[in-house]
Every structure is written in C-alpha cells, then in structure tokens.
C-alpha cells in the first residue's frame, strides 16, 4: 500500500536528519500554564517578518534596483503584473503589521516586567530588532523610488549630517556621494534586501534561543518580586508543578492569532493594494511634498514642532538617547516587582508614549506647520466688498502669500494664527507692526509692501470681526 511506503520514507528521512529528535523536545519545552493570549505578539511579529520575506522575494523577481529602471518596474508591478498590486500591498501592510506587532510585543513584555532578571538579553536583542524593523520600514519606503523616496534620502542625509565630527561622512555614505544620483538607490537596496534582513535572521535566532534558555516568563503576580538569588529555582519549580508543553498547548494560540493577522494583511492588500507611486524620482521637480509612511509620521511631526534652537541637539541626541534608554532598562530595574499593578510609573510611561505618538501622528497627518500652497481663494462673500481698500487688501492678502499660512474662515493655511476675527484681538497699529516686522514664524513684509498696500491690508484685516459694522476692538489686546 502506498501510504505505508510514504510513511516509511518519511520516517527514514526523519530518522536520518533527526528533525523530530532535535526539534521535538524544543517545541515541547514547558511553558507556564497561564501564558495565554497576552503572549501571542512576539510570534505574530515573526510571522509578519516571514510575510515580508516571502512577498519581498516575490517583488525582487520583477524589481530592478537602478535609478532609471526602478520606477518603471514598480509601475509594471503595480499596474500590469498579475498579482503585482496585491503583492506590493502585502509587503506594505505586512510592514505595517510588523511595526504594530513589535510595538505591542514590547509593551506587553515591559508591562509584565519580563525584561527583568534573567531575561535582560532577551530585551536587548528585542530592542535591536525594533531598530532593525524601523530601519527596514524607512529603507523600504526609499525603494519605492518615487519623488518622495528621493527627498526622504535627502532628509535622512541632512539628519545624519548633524552628528558632530562624522556627520559629513555619514551624509555622503547615505547619498552614495555628494548628491542623490545613480549610486543612491542601490545602496538602500543592498541594505534593505541583504544587510538588515541578514542581521534580523541572526538576531531573531538569538532572541528565540534566549526564550528557550530562560523560559517563557510567567504572568506576574503582584507581591512576588524577582529576586535573582531565588528566581531560577522558583521558575523551575513552577514549571514542574503546572507547566504545559509549548507545543501544542500554548502554540495553538500563537498560530491562531498569527494566521488571523495574515488574513487581515491579505484582506487589506486585496482591498487597498499598494500605496500609489508619487511623481518620478527627479530631484529637479521642485513641487514636492515629502511625507514618511505612517509609522514614522510622528517623528516628522517632532522635527516640525521642536522649539527653536533645540533641534540641533535633539536631532542628534534624541534618537540615540531613546535607544540607549531602552537598552539600559533591564539594568535600571533588574529585579523587584514585575506586576504592572505595583509599577504605576511603568503604566504611566506606556500610556504617555502611546498618547504622545498618537497626538504627534495626528499632527503629522494634518501638518498645520506646512504652508498651504493651493489655498481656496477668498470669495466675495467672505471679503464683503467688491471694491475699495477692503477689496484691495483682500487681493493683497492672497497675492502676498498671507493666505498660504493664515486662515480666513475656511480658506487658507494653518501655519500662523487664524485671522478670521483678528480685528477683535488686534488694533490696527499692532497689525502694522506685525506685518512690517514679522515674527519668529512670520516673515517681515516691511520691504516688499508699499505703505499704501499695508494700509489696504490693514483695512481688510480690520473688517475681520464678529461685530459687523463696528470694526476695531473695544479693549486693548
């Protein structure tokens, strides 16, 4: 009978390779019985990584990493190749899922105090893997070799350029020379496809090895602090008493969650597909509006909102300090309470980080600090005049780019203050001072506006009041 032959063949191969003999005990290692749904994010991260490897290899079958050919091959993959649109979507949403899962995994490990003794190196290798994941996200966005990608390289080079002493070298290294050019894309291709994935395979292996070495951390109980002298014995006793084999008692949850995640990624890829390509990668097209993908958009907001004078220090030391702090965490708090019920500062830290990133992300999405280059023109209804100084002032308000940064009702930009009712707040003399001298975030218009023009502008601004027909403030500002 055939099945018997097949069975025997399988058995022979397994015996000679030693697969179940080696992997069996590893897979069936004892895990705490109550390590349940909170423990699925790590394996989900790894699963998202595997989605990236598979979809990335598939994309490499068509993608040509050259400054000239990358853009057309991406167009081909997106619009012509069978499954191309889906595949790019898979790679994009897979990256998003990986960033999300790595964040959840990290928050869970942190809140459960699992980074403490003896799992310090589990945490540190994890922090490095987080760094690699973000690096993959950034370099991946650059391989989408469109206009935004080109400007993202320049922005990256400008940031590393701020590092003292070696900044200039690092910027040249990033660009592959003095400017964006033929050498730029290939560097990022090699980094994204060979260097960083290679490091990730190695570190994921080490990370897993460490999980086996120190065991899956048991869910913490308040009032049972980690004592390095007794922890290992206690943990072994716990496993002996109530441990369950990882396979299949715990593994089924990891697998169910990961497969669900793949389903969501595939669904999003099928519905939305890949992010549309921008304009061609021509650095001489000046009308560009570069924005990073969502997982770095919050940092884009940080760079815009930093107070004047701090950006130099922050750009260099901010990311470095954040990384070092994360690495130092298991040494700052190596033992003691693991339960988040007894670690209010840990909970506050996570909530603060999540809130900060969320708020910055929303701000980055709106980018109110960017001028609005195509503001809706002011209508006659908004201006309230069709001739005279108010009308002339309104025209100047548009012509002189005031509208690019200031809001009048729903027209204009949000860079500067909303001027819809400015006459209720500022006296004409103060308006003139601001227009002529400018401010930290406003250019001085004293040299480009003639006195008559300033008069008209102020007439227009004076008509911006809640109390129609009674311009001017009743009280001083």
């Amino acid at each position: 009978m055939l099945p018997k032959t097949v069975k025997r063949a399988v058995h022979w191969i397994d015996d000679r390779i030693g697969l179940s003999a080696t992997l069996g005990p590893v897979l069936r290692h004892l895990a705490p019985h109550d390590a349940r749904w909170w423990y699925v994010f790590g394996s989900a991260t790894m699963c998202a990584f595997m989605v990236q490897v598979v979809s990335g290899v598939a994309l490499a079958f068509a993608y040509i990493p050259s400054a000239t050919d990358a853009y057309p091959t991406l167009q081909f993959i997106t619009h012509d190749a069978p499954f191309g649109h889906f595949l790019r979507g898979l790679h994009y949403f897979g990256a998003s899922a990986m960033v999300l899962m790595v964040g959840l995994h990290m928050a869970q490990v942190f809140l459960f105090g699992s980074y403490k003794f003896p799992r310090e190196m589990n945490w540190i290798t994890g922090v490095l893997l987080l760094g690699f994941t973000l690096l993959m996200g950034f370099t991946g966005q650059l391989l989408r070799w469109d206009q935004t990608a080109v400007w993202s390289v320049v922005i990256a080079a400008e940031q590393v350029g701020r590092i003292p002493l070696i900044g200039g070298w690092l910027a040249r290294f990033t660009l592959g020379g003095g400017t964006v050019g033929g050498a730029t894309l290939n560097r990022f291709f090699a980094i994204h496809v060979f260097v960083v994935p290679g490091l990730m395979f190695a570190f994921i292996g080490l990370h897993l090895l460490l999980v086996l070495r120190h065991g899956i951390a048991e869910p913490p109980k308040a009032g049972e602090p980690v004592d390095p002298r007794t922890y290992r014995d206690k943990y072994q006793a716990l496993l002996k008493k109530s441990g369950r084999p990882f396979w299949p008692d715990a593994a089924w949850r990891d697998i169910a969650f990961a497969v669900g995640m793949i389903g969501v990624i595939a669904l999003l890829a099928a519905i939305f597909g890949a992010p549309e390509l921008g304009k061609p990668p021509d650095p001489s097209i000046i009308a560009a509006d570069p924005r990073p993908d969502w997982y770095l958009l919050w940092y884009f907001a940080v760079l815009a909102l930093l107070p004047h004078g701090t950006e130099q220090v922050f750009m260099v030391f901010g990311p470095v300090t954040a990384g070092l702090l994360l690495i130092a965490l298991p040494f700052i708090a190596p033992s003691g309470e693991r339960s988040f019920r007894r670690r209010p500062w840990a909970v506050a830290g996570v909530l603060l980080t999540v809130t900060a990133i969320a708020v910055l992300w929303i701000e980055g999405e709106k980018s109110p600090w960017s001028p609005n280059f195509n503001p809706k023109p002011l209508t006659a209804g908004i201006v309230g005049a069709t001739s005279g100084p108010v009308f002339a002032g309104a025209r100047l308000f548009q012509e002189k780019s005031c509208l690019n940064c200031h809001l009048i009702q729903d027209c204009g930009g949000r860079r500067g203050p909303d001027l819809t009712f400015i006459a209720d707040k500022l006296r004409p003399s103060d308006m003139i001072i601001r227009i002529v001298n400018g401010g930290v975030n406003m250019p001085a218009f004293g040299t480009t506006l003639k006195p008559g023009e300033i008069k008209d502008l102020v007439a227009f601004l004076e008509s911006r009041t809640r109390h129609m027909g009674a311009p001017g403030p009743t009280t001083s500002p």
Partner: protein
Amino acid sequence: MNESNADPPEPCPGATPEEITRRKFLSRISLSLIGLGGAVVTVPLIGFIFAPLFRRDPGVWRTIGAVGSFKVGETTAVEFLDSSPLPWAGIAAKNAAWLRRTSEKEFIAFAINCSHLGCPVRWQQSAQLFMCPCHGGVYYADGTVAAGPPPAPLGRYPVRVREGEVQIQTKPTVIQRA
C-alpha cells in the same frame, strides 16, 4: 532550560601540561587564521562600500541658458546635471537651483534645499518668498531666513557668465553641520 548555572566541564581532564600548552597553541593559531581569512575578504568589501566617502566631487560648470532669457529681478527654477552622472542614473542625476538675476551682470544661484532638512523650497513670486513644504521654513528673496525652523540661509552655487551663457558650478547637496 536551566543548564545555565552548571559550570563548564574541566578542559581536557587528565591532560598533561604539554598537551594543554599544545591545545592552547592550536586554538590560538586557529583563531588567528580565521581572523586573517576574514580580513582578506572584508577589508576590500568595506573599502568598496565606503568609497563614496573619499571620492572628490569635481565642480563642473554647467550651462543653464542664455543671459537674455533671465529677467533682472526675477527668480527662476533651472535644471542641470550633477558633476559625474553614472550611466544608469537617468533623471536621478538631475539637479535644480533657483536662479536670481540681481542686475545686468550679476546672478545668484540658490540651492533648492531648505537648510532645515533639505526639502525643496518653492519660490512665491508675488510674495517674494521661498517657502518649504515640509516644516514651514520661509526665506526672503536673498536667501536669508524669514521664518520657521531653518538654522541657516539657503545654500548657493557658484555662477558665472561665459560667452553670453549663464553657467552654474555643480557641488554636493549642502548638509548643515553641527
């Protein structure tokens, strides 16, 4: 799972002092050989990857257009190729600058890169301002900072006029330094 606490076994139990010295020697020579082999492969590789750091960019004069095609007092976007475009660079080797004709004989070529993070600034003709789309940097017509986060004025390219043609000298993207 808890083998970690066990001490490693005694090296070579029952070995004579000669054997121990011999093994020490062999392990040292093996490690040195591995190091040597690795260096032979990696040193050229590192040199290859880091070559761009040490390459000099020759400033090349690129012709932009006839002097007459630029009006005095106006600022125009101009395009030129970088100093040594690679054969496969295509449009990625293109570069742009804002060329301002300040008088009959004088020109200024501003880099399009904002001094904050390098985004391309746009010239607003009627307002006489350069505005950056990324983080809201603004510059006056002479390239000095008017508003926003930029720490320095717009960079400039050398410009000259030769036989009635305006020429720009290429140079690396201006990187703000600490």
